[in-house]
Each structure stands twice: as structure tokens, then as C-alpha cells.
């Protein structure tokens, strides 16, 4: 959901019209995945919350997304680095979740898997093009891979996922790490770039509602109109 919001910001801001469409499309896919899951969560937790209750009425501390997706939009290389890691992880995740003990989760994952495979292809294509393009694009793409590094550990952090994994509903994020890394290594090698070393600091806490600075502003923008009209339907 949060990443859909960030990706949609590219529309009218992309380097070419085809890319306005492609990033809009990825945003739509992710938004669709969130919309498919929210009512299910509302049923499971007994609150009966709707998709808009989750998206528009939740305060920052109640959001469970990783820091990677809430960061402000950087340049196109930053976005492709973020999309590469995010969608590589989502491919591995949904491939596993397709066997979830929860049939709704399994169904959503099966559909999402096709989508995120396309997202990963799209990101891979651009990382290779930019890495093996001009001097400038190569420099930018390498910097982007470095800038994204502090946010990666959190993608594979188990803290908040143990219970769901134990129940056979979810997957332990740490179990995805090696497969994701192999995918990334292949793309980065083809792009003639180097995968940066781990960073000295790491983003953490998103899964327990500890967010980074940009999150509050993202929510302010996303929720302002909905919050300004309590009880309204649209």
C-alpha cells in the first residue's frame, strides 16, 4: 500500500511516457494486492475494518510496513534499486505464500506472483540498462544501490513474523534472503555494477510501527481528505 502510494507519485514525473504508464501499472498491482488483503485482515482480527479503515484511518504507529517503501522518491535509479530489491523479495514471498494454510492469502499470493514477476523483470531491465548505459547512468545506478543498502536487512527480519510462520500462514522473511540475494547478484552482475557491502546503520522497527521521518508526511497527504470528512463515502 505504502509503496503503491510512492510509485504513483511518479505519474507525470517519469523520464518517458511509457514509464509513467509502467510505474502507474505497478502501483495499481500493489494497490490491488493490498485491497485484496485488508478486508481479510479485518475479518481475522474481528474488527471488521474495511480497506479504507486500514488505509485512511490508521495512525502512523499502527502501520507495519518496512522503511524501504516509505522513503521519499529519489531519482529514477533510486526507484529502480528499490523496486529491484522489493520485487525480488515479493517474488520469493508470494511463491511461498501461494502454499499458505490460509486460502485467501494463498489465492492473493498466486495472483500477485504473476504481477511481481513482471515488476522484477521491469526493474531488472532498467538496472541493466542504466548500469551498462552511459557513464552518468552507471554512476547514478551504483550510488542508488548503495543508498538502498541500509534498508535491506529489515526486509528479512523475522521479529514480527514468527507467529504467522509457525501457523503455516506466513513465511519467515529470513528464509527468503538467500534466494533473493542470488536474484539480485545476477542482475547486478549483468549490469556490470557492484553489490555494495552492508552498511553501518540499518533501518529497523517498521514492522512494529516505528517509522522514519517521511512516513508521517506520506500519511498526512494520503489521509487528509478522507480524515477531513468523517463518515463520508466517496
Amino acid at each position, binding site marked *: 500500500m505504502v509503496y503503491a502510494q510512492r510509485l504513483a507519485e511518479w505519474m507525470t514525473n517519469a523520464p518517458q511516457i511509457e514509464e509513467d504508464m509502467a510505474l502507474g501499472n505497478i502501483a*495499481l498491482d500493489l494497490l490491488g494486492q493490498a485491497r485484496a488483503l485488508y478486508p481479510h485482515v479485518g475479518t481475522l482480527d474481528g474488527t471488521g475494518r474495511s480497506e479504507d479503515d486500514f488505509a485512511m484511518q490508521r495512525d502512523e504507529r499502527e502501520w507495519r510496513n518496512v522503511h524501504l517503501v516509505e522513503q521519499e522518491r529519489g531519482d529514477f535509479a533510486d526507484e529502480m534499486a528499490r523496486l529491484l530489491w522489493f520485487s525480488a523479495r515479493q517474488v520469493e514471498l508470494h511463491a511461498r505464500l501461494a502454499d499458505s494454510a490460509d486460502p485467501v492469502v494463498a489465492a492473493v499470493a498466486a495472483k500477485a506472483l504473476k504481477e511481481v514477476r513482471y515488476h522484477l523483470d521491469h526493474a531488472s531491465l532498467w538496472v541493466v540498462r542504466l548500469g551498462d548505459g552511459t557513464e552518468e547512468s552507471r554512476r547514478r545506478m551504483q550510488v542508488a544501490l548503495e543508498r538502498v543498502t541500509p534498508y535491506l536487512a529489515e526486509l528479512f527480519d523475522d521479529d514480527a513474523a514468527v507467529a504467522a510462520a509457525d501457523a503455516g500462514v506466513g513465511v519467515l522473511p529470513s528464509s527468503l534472503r538467500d534466494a533473493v540475494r542470488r536474484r539480485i547478484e545476477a542482475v547486478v552482475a549483468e549490469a556490470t555494477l557492484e553489490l555494495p557491502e552492508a552498511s553501518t546503520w540499518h533501518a529497523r522497527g517498521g514492522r512494529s510501527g516505528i517509522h522514519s521521518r517521511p512516513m508521517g508526511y506520506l500519511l498526512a497527504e494520503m489521509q487528509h481528505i478522507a480524515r477531513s470528512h468523517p463518515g463520508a463515502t*466517496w
Partner: protein
Amino acid sequence: DRVGSDFDALLAADQRIEPRDAMPEKYRETLIRQIAQHAHSEIIGMQPEGNWITRAPSLRRKAILIAKVQDEAGHGLYLYSAAETLGIDRQELLERLHDGKQKYSSIFNYPTLTWADCGAIGWLVDGAAIMNQVPLCRCSYGPYARAMIRVCKEESFHQRQGFEILWNLMRGTEAQQAMAQDAADRWWWPALMMFGPPDTGEAAKGGHTEQSMAWGIKRFSNDDLRQKFVDMMVPQAEKLGIVLPDPDLRWNEERGHYDFGPIDWDEFWRVLRGDGACNAERISHRRRAHDEGAWVREAANAYAGKHAARSAERQAGEQQGSAA
């Protein structure tokens, strides 16, 4: 003159002119200008609604809006392709847009102030666009006519979505109703201006209408289309419960049409000259995105170039290998 007579014969037979056909230079230029302006309008038209994607008040509306803005990008692409069949490339057309040498529909120089404006744009602006565009599906230039068929299908979908946004608002809270009415108040007159200045009666001599009609790239006068639009929208407004902001608006039994009040053409010309609320912003936003993306497009070209060179080398190597 062979060119002239073949061309005239095709027009007379109501056949499509295709890219391979010879055509008068003026016809070609007029079409390029018109198709480009149309394409630019789709691309610039992404901005007023794009402004609301991050703030759409529900996820369903957000998804619909993203899809709509995406469709507009797609329409821009078809139309640039149609223009390219006339021997000019997209890069060149975009430069003309960015330099102000080619225009886009002036309606997009009005701001989108509230969520209801997304409804009003769909209902009124897309409504007016369809009215203008449906006749173009029978335009004399084949690629343009075929692009318009596809565009019109999606536009009528967008118009219904706009209507639905306003419908929900008018059935919502007081604040939502006020928001919808306010949006209609602000967009009604600019929508009427979308058909262009008067071109019938006294005004028929000034513009391009006559020539464009002869060439089969215009089928109805601006004034006729405007009247059709008013006649179509008034009952829809009544259904919505929206009061259109024109005290002179009433059914004229004799004409079989709705009468409507005078349009502020001074405002129209002022905005067209560049002094609208958003002229400066629209172009600078577009140029910024284009300039910021230059290095990406260059990288893609460089990569494609290298890739082509490498596979040529590989091929050459293989041939040598098999020859040795």
C-alpha cells in the same frame, strides 16, 4: 496535379487517406498541428488529475484515478504515433510543446482545487472531449481516425466515472454536496469554451472551420458541437442535482435546444495567451520531468546501441568461426 486529384478523389469517395498516399502539404501540416495538440492535451491533462492521486479519499477512487491517468498517457502515445505517420517524431513534438510552439487544450490551465474537480473533469471535460472527438472517428486521415476510435471508447468510460464521483458526492454530506456544486460552478464555462470560439454566422469567415470541413477533419462547427453538449449535459445535471451556473439556461421549445448565456471570451483569450492559473506550472512541470529524465533516456539509447553493436560482433564472429 496528380497529388491533388488522387487526394480529392479519395476525399470525395469518403475513403481514408493513408500515410503512403500523397497529400497536400497544408493538409499534412494542419493534421500534424491538430494531432499534436490533441496528444499534448492528453499528456498535460494527466497533471490536473495526477495532482489528486496521492490524496484520493478512498482506495477504490485512487485505483480508478491511477488507471485513468494511465489511460491518458496511453492516448498520448497513440496520438504521437499517429502524428509520426506524417513524418515527424515524438521528440520533436515534445520540444514544440515545451517551447510553447504547439498548444494543448486550454482547459488544463485551470486548477483542480478539490476532490470534486476529479468528478467535474470526468463529467464535463471528458464529456466535451468526447463530443469533439466522436466525429473524428470518421476523420479523413486513417491513422488519426483509428486512434480516435480507441480513445473515444475509454473516454466515455471516464465520463461515466466522473459522473459517478459527482453522483456520490451529491448523495453525501453537506460538505460533499457543496464541493460538487462548487466544482461544477468552476468547470462549466471553461468546458463550453473547449469547443473553441464562435464559428457560425458572422464568425464563420475568420477561422479554419471551412477548410477543415472540406478536408474531412472537422465534421461539425464549434457552435453546433457546443449546442449539442449543452443539450446533453443539462438533463445530466438535473439528474445529479447540480445547478449549472448560468441564469440564462432554459429550454427553447422553438429551437428545440437549450438557450445559454454569453461566454466570457476575454477570459478564453487571456488563458490562451498564457495568463491562466496554471499555464506556467503545467509547462514547467512537464519540462522538469522531461529534463530530469534526460539521462535515463540517454542511457537507454546507449545501452541499445551497445547491445546492437555486440550482437553484430557476435554474429560476425560466428560467421568467421564457421568460415574458418
